[in-house]
Each structure stands twice: as C-alpha cells, then as structure tokens.
C-alpha cells in the first residue's frame, strides 16, 4: 500500500510545468511488474507466517486437552446393564454317622425346596453334601475368612450340621455364635427319613438369610440394577429400620480411624489404662472386622473439659438426687469448639468415642429420659458418661473400663453398619461384606455415570489423561467385582469393588478439572480485539486491495 503511493508521488515531480494543477497532470506511469510481484510476495509472506505458524500456535495454546472417555461403557454401568447382580450361597451339609448317599439325598431335597420357592431371585442356594468331617471343613472356611487362600474347598457361606440327638424332644435349630454353623438337632427315633427333615432345614436356612435379602433389596430397589419384578416390596417397619441403619452407619471406607477420648470435668481422674482395656475388648472385634476394613486406634485424655455454652447443662433433680441431662442437650454435649476432636488423621473417617467423667459436685450425671449414661451420634461416634464412684483414684483401671469398652464395642458395631440379624456375629459380618460390596458397586457405577454426564455438559473443562486411566481401571475392577459376586467370592469382590470406588472417586474429583468454566462472548471480544486488531487491520486491507487489483487486471486481460 505504502509502496504504491510512494511510486505515485515520486512520479509527479518529474513532470515539471503543471505542478499547480495536480488533478489534471499526466497520469502516473504504470507500475512495473517487478514491484507488483515484490509487493504481492511481501503480503503473501505475512499471510503465510500467520497461516502456517500463527494460527496453529493459537489453536494449540488455547485448546483444552480432553482425553477420550469410554462414554458408552460408563453409561452402561450407570444404567445397570453391564452387570446382573446375583448372589450364590454355597451351603455345606454334614450329617454325622450317616453315609454319603443319604446326605446327598437330603442335600438335593433341601436344594429343590429352596429353588422351588423362588421369591429370592437375587439369591441362589447351592446345598453341597460334605463328605469330610464337618469340623475340619468349617475350620478351613474360617481360615479363609481370616485372609488365607482356601485350598480345595469352596468358600462356604454356611454349614449345616445335622446331629442325631436321641434326647432331643423335637427338631430344633440354633446358630453357633462365632462360627457360621447352623446346628440342627433331631431325634432319630422320630424322624427316620429325610423327608420331614428337609423342609425344616430349608425354612431355617431361609430364615437365616431373610434380613440380608431385605437389606439388599432395599439397596437395589430404586437403582437401575434390578428390574421391578426381581425386588419385592418391603414392609414400612423393615424399610424404616433399614433406613435408620443406613443413616446411622458410616459410609464404607477402607480405613477407619478410631479415637477414644477421656474428658474429665475436674482434674481427676487424669489417666486411664486404655491400652489394656482396648486390648481386651475392642481388639478382638477389630480383628474379626479386619477382613472388611482396616482400623487405627488413638487415645487421648483431656482434663478440665467444660461444657459448651450453648447447652443448658445438667439440672439437679431433688427427688432422685441426680443431675439430669436433657435430650436436647445431647446433640450439643460434645463441645466442638473446646474439645480437640475431629482431627485429620488420614484418609478415612474418624469414629470418635468419648468417655466423660463429671466432677464430684455434678455427679451422678444421668440422662433425663432413660436414666442411662450413653448415647450414639450417627455418623460421628458414641458418648458415655462414667460417674466417679467413691473410691476413685487418679487412674482409671482396666477393670473400671471394662464395661465402658463393651458399650463402645457395641456402638462401634452399630456405627459400622453391622446388621441386626442373624444371631451369629460371624454371619452378620459376611452379610455386611456382601452388602458393602453391592453398595460400592452401585456407588462406583453412579459416579461413572455422573462423570459421563459432566464431560458432555461442561464442554470447556480440561479432562487430563489421569482421569481416562482411572476410568479404565474402574471399569476393569467393576467387571471383576461383578464376576466375583456371581461366583460367590465375596471377599475378593469387596476388594475389587473398593478399588473401583476409589478410582472412580479419584476420576470424578480430579483437582485440575475445576476452573472458571464460563467465559462470556463479551470477554473474548474484549481480549482479542485490542490484541490482534491493530495487527490484523493492515494485513487484511492489503490482502483485499491485492485481490481487487488482481481481479481488475484479469478483467482487463480477458
């Protein structure tokens, strides 16, 4: 542009005479082709740099890296189509002193009875007649529960030990406390063959698993993992008790941190033999629960702990000569501001157990409504009041703490979500394993679905590669967990489901996936116009002028 005007202006002084009348002067000589081509090359050079270097550079630096997520498989898992949940339960049957053919006969009868009434379509029972001694096969299963590999035996959920007891008045069944054994005693004099025994055994087995079946139906009820026909409706009481258990218990975590705290209102007692008491009462329980989660235990003592100012405080009751604590004070009893609780110990929730010893002038301190001295705070922990007795020394001995620790153990099992029945605690633990594995599979699937929806809706956030990797790992683990559930390997299913859940959470809560995701158009204009405008205007104008000139000369030539 400037070149052509320079040429035009340089041609006029050579004219001479009619400088006073520039409009009627002789026309400027035509541009030499060489200079035209130079000009065109220069403009082309500028545009070539813009197109080959500038524009790709801008695209590269302003594009958001979004790695590919397997959206179809994520949505399949979220819609429940990727896994058909099914729980096979292998039940061993042993009948001492009878030969194997009779035992097998009984087993097949019980099996056919259980499969006939197929309202438990999620659960499948497989009755296996055990030729070996019932005791050793039980022990093998218990070892397997404790974490070892089970060699040769399938992981049996329950053992039915049929004992011929001549002194039994009628056929009865009872669950052994810490072993998954259902003992059935019958009188061989009365029940000679197996046709009367089989229905009894079948109904007992069904009773054992009834609560668990209800719990799992409740879990799966509103999720897309089951069709409406599979899950039967529950009665309102059962539903509300299951809801209460769910709101009371902590969410599943691979590690729980337990803290036991002693808060003393006055200066004494100032120490407690917590380690010994914990060793006696809590450690055995934690050992058994170690197949589900890990536990760490911490203890602390705090003296001169005062009440929070927002609660009314204990009131003296003349008639019973006791200090009463009202129910409304219970939720604010734990003075969150002054009492050092809720620390960040590590990953995993903290379950706090508080033992409060009131001062001499405020004891005995009891709860107003029940006269008891302990309560449980859902998803937080438990509180207990220990009233100082006359012979209180500076140190609370393990004997003093024994009843306290028992109550804490009880509260702990409630806070972990252990179901109420069946009566045997070891069966309850295995039922919790199944429930937790199921809920983890559900939660990981819904997280995958949420992540898929998120990636589609928020198109301007970056999705790093680690997210794609975590999603792949999650889907792999979910497949394995589903497979394990269908095969009856519940502990491995729990492990896989736990890993799947961890990876899914990691993918969804990726810290670099946040950002101010919205830039309105006005902002973009306001940034780019002053930046690129002064540069773009001359280039665009030059290019347009050249195009017009090119078309003009072509018209002339044509």
């Amino acid at each position: 542009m400037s070149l052509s005007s320079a040429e035009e202006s340089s041609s006029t002084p050579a004219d001479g005479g009619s400088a006073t009348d520039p409009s009627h002067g002789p026309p400027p000589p035509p541009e030499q082709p060489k200079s035209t081509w130079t000009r065109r090359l220069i403009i082309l050079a500028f545009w070539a740099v813009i197109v080959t270097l500038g524009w790709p550079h801008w695209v590269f630096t302003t594009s958001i890296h979004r790695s590919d997520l397997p959206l179809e498989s994520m949505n399949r898992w979220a819609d429940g189509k990727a896994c058909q949940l099914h729980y096979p339960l292998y039940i061993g049957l042993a009948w001492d002193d009878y030969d194997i053919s009779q035992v097998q006969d009984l087993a097949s009868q019980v099996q056919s009875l259980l499969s006939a009434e197929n309202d438990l379509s999620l659960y499948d029972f497989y009755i296996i007649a055990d030729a070996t001694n019932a005791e050793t096969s039980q022990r093998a299963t218990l070892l397997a529960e404790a974490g070892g590999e089970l060699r040769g035996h399938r992981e049996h959920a329950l053992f039915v030990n049929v004992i011929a007891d001549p002194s039994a008045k009628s056929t009865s069944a009872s669950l052994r406390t810490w072993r998954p054994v259902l003992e059935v005693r019958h009188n061989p004099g009365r029940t000679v063959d197996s046709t009367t025994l089989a229905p009894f055994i079948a109904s007992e087995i069904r009773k054992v698993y009834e609560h668990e079946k209800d719990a799992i139906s409740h879990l799966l009820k509103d999720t897309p993992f089951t069709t409406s026909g599979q899950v039967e409706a529950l009665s309102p009481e059962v539903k509300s008790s299951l809801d209460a258990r769910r709101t009371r218990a902590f969410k599943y975590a691979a590690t729980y941190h337990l803290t036991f705290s002693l808060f003393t209102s006055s200066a004494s007692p100032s120490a407690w033999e917590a380690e010994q008491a914990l060793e006696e009462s809590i450690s055995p329980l934690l050992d058994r629960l170690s197949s589900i989660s890990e536990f760490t235990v911490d203890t602390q003592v705090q003296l001169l702990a005062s009440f929070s100012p927002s609660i009314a405080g204990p009131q003296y009751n003349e008639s019973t000569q006791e200090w009463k604590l009202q129910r409304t004070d219970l939720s604010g009893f734990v003075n969150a501001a002054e009492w050092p609780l809720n620390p960040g110990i590590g990953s995993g929730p903290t379950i706090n157990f508080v033992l409060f010893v009131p001062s001499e002038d405020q004891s005995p301190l009891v709860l107003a409504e029940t006269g008891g001295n302990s309560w449980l705070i859902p998803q937080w922990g438990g509180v207990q009041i220990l009233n100082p007795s006359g012979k209180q020394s500076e140190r609370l001995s393990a004997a003093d703490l024994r009843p306290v620790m028992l109550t804490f153990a009880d509260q702990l099992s409630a806070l972990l979500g252990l179901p109420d029945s069946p009566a045997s605690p070891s069966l309850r633990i295995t039922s919790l394993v199944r429930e937790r594995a199921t809920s983890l599979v559900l939660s990981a699937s819904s997280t995958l679905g949420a992540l898929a929806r998120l990636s589609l809706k928020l198109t301007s956030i970056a999705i790093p590669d680690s997210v794609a990797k975590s999603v792949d790992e999650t889907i792999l683990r979910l497949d394995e967990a589903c497979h394990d559930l269908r095969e009856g390997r519940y502990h491995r299913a729990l492990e896989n489901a736990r890993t799947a859940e961890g990876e899914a959470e990691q993918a969804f809560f990726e810290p670099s996936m946040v950002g101010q995701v919205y830039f309105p158009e006005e902002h973009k204009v306001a940034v780019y116009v002053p930046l690129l405008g002064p540069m773009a205007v001359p280039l665009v104008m030059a290019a347009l002028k050249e195009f017009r000139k090119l078309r003009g000369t072509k018209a002339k030539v044509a």
Partner: protein
Amino acid sequence: MKTLNSVWAFLALASIACAAHTSNWAVLVSTSRFWFNYRHLANTLSLYRTVKRLGIPDSQILLLLPDDMACNPRNAFSGTVYSNADRRMDLYGENVEVDYRGYEVTVENFIRLLTDRWEEGVPASKRLQTDEGSNILIYMTGHGGSEFLKFQDSEEISSWDLADAFSQMREKKRYNEMLFMIDTCQANTLYRQFYAPGVIATGSSEEDESSYSHHADNDVGVAVIDRWTYYVLEFLETQVTGPTSDKTLGDLFDSYDVGKIHSNPGVRWDLFPGGEQAGRSRRVVDFFGNVQNVEVQGNQTGVESLKEDLQGLKRLVQDYQAFAAAQESNKTEMSDVVQRRNLEAVSSGKIRQKQRHTVGKLQLSENAQWARQVAGATVLSGLAALWYFAPKLM
C-alpha cells in the same frame, strides 16, 4: 444386641420422621476486602453467630473472610467487629473459627470447596464434607453486578459458574436441599442461571437495583451492616429464638418489607421439589440449625450378650492361632531342618558378611568422590587453558 438395636431403631424412627436431612452445613462467604467494606464482613459474621447460636458446630461451618477488620489499624475498637452502632455484641472476639482468610478466598478455592476437587493433603476443616442427607446454607455478600460477583476486587465469579458448580454437587449427591442467600447489588441476577434441583435462592435486589447499607457507626467510621441482612437478622433474632423454633421459610420471606429494605428482594422456588408450597413449609432451623439424631441407649441386656460374644471371640482367636501353628508344623519337617541349617550358616558367617558390607560401602563412596574431584579438576584446567591460549590463537 438385637433388642438393643431395635430400641435404637425405634427412637431413631421417632426423630427421623420429621427431618429428612441428617446434617447441616453452612458456607458463609464475604467477598470484599478493604476497610470501607467493613459491613460485608459484619454481615457474614452476624450470620455466623446466628448459625452457631442455633446449633451448627464449627466443624460444619465454612467461614470465608478475605480481610481482617478486627485487627485493622483503622479499627478504633481493635479486636472487635460490630454489626450495630450500639456496639452491644462483639461478633469477633471469642470462639470464632475462620476457615479461609485473606487471599485464600478466591473464586477457584470457592468452586473447589463446592465441588470438593482438592489436591492431596488439604485439611478437613477446609472441605465441605457433605453427603446426600446434608442441608446446606450458602450466604454470599459483597459487591456484585448483573450475573457476577466480585471477589477481592480482582476477579469475579459468574452465575454460570455457580450454576455449574451446584449441578456438579447434585450429580455427586452432595446435598439434600440448599438455601442460597445473597446480599449484593443486583443480587437476584446471580441465581438466574441455576438449574440444579433442590435449591431455594433468595437475593436482596433485582437487576439494575442497588442494595444499600443500613446505618453507619460514627466511631467506627464506616457502615456496619447492610439493609437486607439487617432485616433478615432481625427476623432470626426475634422470631427464631432457639433450635426448636417452628418458623418457616415462608415466614422469613414474608417478613421482607420493600419500604424498609429499599430494594426488591426476590425468591426463587422453581428448582425446589414441590415448588413454592413445599419450600414455604420448610422450617428456618432446617437450614440455620443443626439436626442431630441422637440415639439413646436404653437397656443393658445387649451389652451382656456382647460380653459373651467377645469371650467366645477370644477363644476363637486362640483356636485360630493353635490351628495355624498346627498347620505350619504339619507342612514339612524338611523345611524345618532346612531352616535350622540356614540359621547356623548365617550366624557363623554373619560377622564376616557384616564386615564385608561395611568395607564395601566405604570403598564405593570413596571411589565416587575421587572421580568427581578428578572431573572437576579437568574442567577447571581446561577452562584456564582456554582463557590463556584463546587470545593467542585469535
């Protein structure tokens, strides 16, 4: 244990029947700094005191204050923050826990807080650890405009960001119901873009309207409270007197008086399930107070059965150990012999091995040092030669 749990379940039933949420959280954000924005911090601190009074513990309150008015050198009453010219109640002096202070209050941190996308190692006191049963109260105050809110005079958050953050919270089931309150100029525009269900939003002024401060304290020197917040607090202090108050959100929003507030506050109901009717019947303490279903333990029989259970468990553990020991001894006797032989061999050669190990270690380190020294000397001499000979060559 069974009867015990049923007693608990029954009591839990009784208390759960009224409240569908299981915990309460509050996120109180002030977004302005500088002394002349004293009233924004006073707004936030008064809400903080109210929420604490009604029972929410500090561990469930996230307080974001970008500036420190109490220790500001311009504060004539240092160490205090007042929201009223009569200076009867100090909002700051004791028992206050600020979770985000100063320059930590940024848009990015706020969105991270809402969506819980943190790096490793962020402490629990800075996180909003809610679950699907939590009711959340979010209160924001500061300077704002049409569909944006200014943070610390240097950045802004737009209503779309907030809407997206809330929808992400909904996807991950991080709240049961949410009450969003905002006191800025043109506040109602900020909740215009929300689309996540379960949110009731209320603001202090319409588009193109400013929100005004209520009064100034002549000794502090600046305005100490905003109008809308002042009248909301008046309602909360006079009518919602305790954690069991029955006043509803409908009562709260009906108490808005345009003549006193000098701007048109608004409420948004359409995202709430059940619409305005359901929203109006929610109690104020469902968002401002704290629900905690405490389960009281009644009888002691459960504990007795647990004692038996635990004793049986101890016996079982002993059985385990005996059985495991028996298994191991049964395995092979060869392995035992082999092990014994290994032990002997190791114990005899142990001392020699140790010496060799330590000698070896010393030698290695010496070697490395010497090599390094040689390399260093070579480089130095090379450079010196270059310096000396290069001009001669040129």
